[in-house]
């Protein structure tokens, strides 16, 4: 399973991750491309956010000034993010789980209501859509509540959860794309570096967080409520043979009103799930109970079905694992479909904690900053958009393959962002003059 056809085994996961990312980027590009108006944007005052606290870029500044200011902004931004992440780790360490949960809900609500509404209004104004205020606000209210609910509730279809996450990413990315140009690029690079450090370095906040969560056998706090639905298609994750878990952080600190909605932590960890093939027999019994009882209850008892369920579970379930807990373990291939069992377990009231569906998880941070990059590229030209899109997607693919090889939490931003930035500037500086020149002189096409 590990050797040979890495692509074969993780192909579905790659698609499952890439599809929503692509949709998100596409929509951000469309949004920016249709609504963005260079002349009005130039006159508009740039808002001060957490990402440009220090320096407000103005077009008249010299390049050196811009560069210095942008670097300062990026440093401040990353420091803020780091502090907030450590705060989150601290809160999680002392088990303020409810606070984190409610805070996440609140921030999602604010993102949808405040930031989302103003984007919608921009669209309405841009296209002169003849909708009256009452209808608009009813629809907005509905959408906001639906989005907020779908972030944490169980009774929402997975597809709706995923779309909500994509929309959330679009909204935040659209706001981020309002940052001044130089600041955007430097902040993106700085975030990629930060991500690298935070996930991989010993003592990095996100690494701490992941370790803490997995040592407690819990979902990542707050983050997971944000991230879990981002899995492209859960079916993909279920079918897979590789146990992956890509967790990612969206900002724990989005106090998302007009000013600094931007403290979000663009970090992603891709964490691999260990496979534990030799977990013992005692657990099988427990599992058996889990299986049998609910089936009885549902009037579908049949021994063979239990067998098959176990079979299937063993076949398709990724499992998070440090493997000490009793839930780990499975009859055949050593993995359990945690999802199904968890539902059963909850219903039965058997106290077995943490059965969680574990698929690839990609954080909101990724969605947002990939889309920011592409959206910023869309403000220049569509050619740069194509280049950046390809770069980001290939970077994401590389990250996923690395994940399959390394089997530990990986940051998803660095490779993609690096490639994206490089491709942007290469395209802008070299390819565009060449292609445009060649085609206007009828040497090509």
């Amino acid at each position, binding site marked *: 399973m590990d050797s040979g056809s890495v692509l074969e085994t993780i192909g579905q996961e790659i698609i499952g991750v890439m599809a929503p990312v692509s949709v998100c980027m596409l929509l951000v590009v469309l949004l920016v491309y249709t*609504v963005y*108006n260079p002349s*009005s*944007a130039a006159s*508009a005052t740039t808002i001060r956010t957490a990402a440009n606290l220090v320096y407000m870029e103005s077009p008249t500044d010299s390049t050196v000034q811009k560069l210095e200011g942008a670097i300062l902004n990026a440093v401040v931004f990353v420091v803020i993010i780091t502090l907030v992440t450590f705060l989150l780790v601290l809160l999680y360490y002392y088990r303020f789980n409810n606070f984190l949960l409610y805070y996440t809900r609140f921030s999602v609500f604010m993102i949808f209501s405040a*930031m989302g*509404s*103003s*984007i919608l*209004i*921009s669209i*309405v*104004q841009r296209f*002169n*859509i*003849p*909708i*009256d*205020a*009452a209808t*608009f606000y*009813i629809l907005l*209210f*509905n*959408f906001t*509540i*639906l989005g907020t609910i779908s972030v944490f*509730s*169980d*009774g*929402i*279809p*997975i597809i*709706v959860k995923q779309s909500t996450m994509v929309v959330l990413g679009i909204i935040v990315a659209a*706001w981020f794309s*309002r940052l001044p140009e130089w600041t955007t690029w430097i902040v993106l690079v700085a975030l990629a570096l930060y991500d690298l450090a935070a996930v991989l370095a010993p003592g990095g906040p996100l690494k701490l967080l992941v370790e803490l969560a997995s040592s407690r056998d819990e979902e990542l706090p707050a983050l997971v409520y944000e991230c879990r639905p981002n899995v492209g298609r*859960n*079916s993909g994750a279920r*079918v897979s043979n590789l146990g992956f878990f890509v967790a990612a952080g969206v900002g724990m600190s989005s106090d998302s009103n*007009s000013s600094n909605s931007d403290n979000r932590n663009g970090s992603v960890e891709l964490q691999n799930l260990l496979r534990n093939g030799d977990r013992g027999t005692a657990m099988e019994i427990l599992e058996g109970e889990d299986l049998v009882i609910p089936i009885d209850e*549902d*009037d*579908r008892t*049949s021994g*063979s*079905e239990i*067998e*098959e*369920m176990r*079979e*299937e579970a063993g*076949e*398709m379930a990724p499992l998070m694992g440090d493997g000490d807990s009793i839930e780990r373990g499975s009859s055949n291939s050593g993995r359990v*479909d945690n*999802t199904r069992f968890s*539902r*059963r377990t*909850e*219903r039965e009231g058997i106290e077995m904690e943490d059965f969680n*569906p574990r698929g690839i998880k990609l954080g909101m941070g990724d969605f947002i900053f990939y889309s920011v990059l592409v959206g910023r590229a869309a403000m220049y030209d569509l050619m740069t958009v194509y280049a950046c899109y390809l770069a980001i997607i290939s970077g994401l693919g590389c990250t996923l393959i690395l994940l399959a090889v390394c089997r530990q939490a990986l940051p998803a931003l660095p490779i993609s962002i690096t490639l994206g930035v490089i491709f942007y500037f290469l395209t802008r500086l070299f390819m565009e003059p060449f292609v445009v020149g060649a085609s206007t002189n009828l040497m090509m096409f």
Partner: protein
Amino acid sequence: MDDDSRVPLSNLHAAGNLLPTTGEASSSTSRSVRTEWPTIDGPLGLSHEESLTYARRFFKLGFLCLPFLWAVSCFYFWPVLRNPRSQQSHPRLRRYLVGSAIGFFLFTTILSSWALTFAIGGERLFGHVWGELVMYNVAEKYGLAGWI
């Protein structure tokens, strides 16, 4: 939609059946049984008991001017809504769902007829009130558009 979502599941089953421990008989029973999940997410979705709780909650919440919740509820429990004679689902579950569907359609009809009247009738129908109600003027007046 639900058929689509079931396809991979049944494929998985077919794959599972190839393994030696499972027999042919079990595959047919389990396949027929497996189609009885109350939600479109199949095994990843809710159980029947949880379904009732959520359907009731969404049904009640929908009256707070939240017809989207009714729509989502109908969409999510589509298998139950579509099979009236299902043995496993709770009878009350279906009642909530039908209520949600009716509510959603009522609300949609009313709202869309109003919105269409407003959009199509325009200033000819409403006079100067139209200009005060239309969203882009409202946004202009109160400075609501913050983004771009």
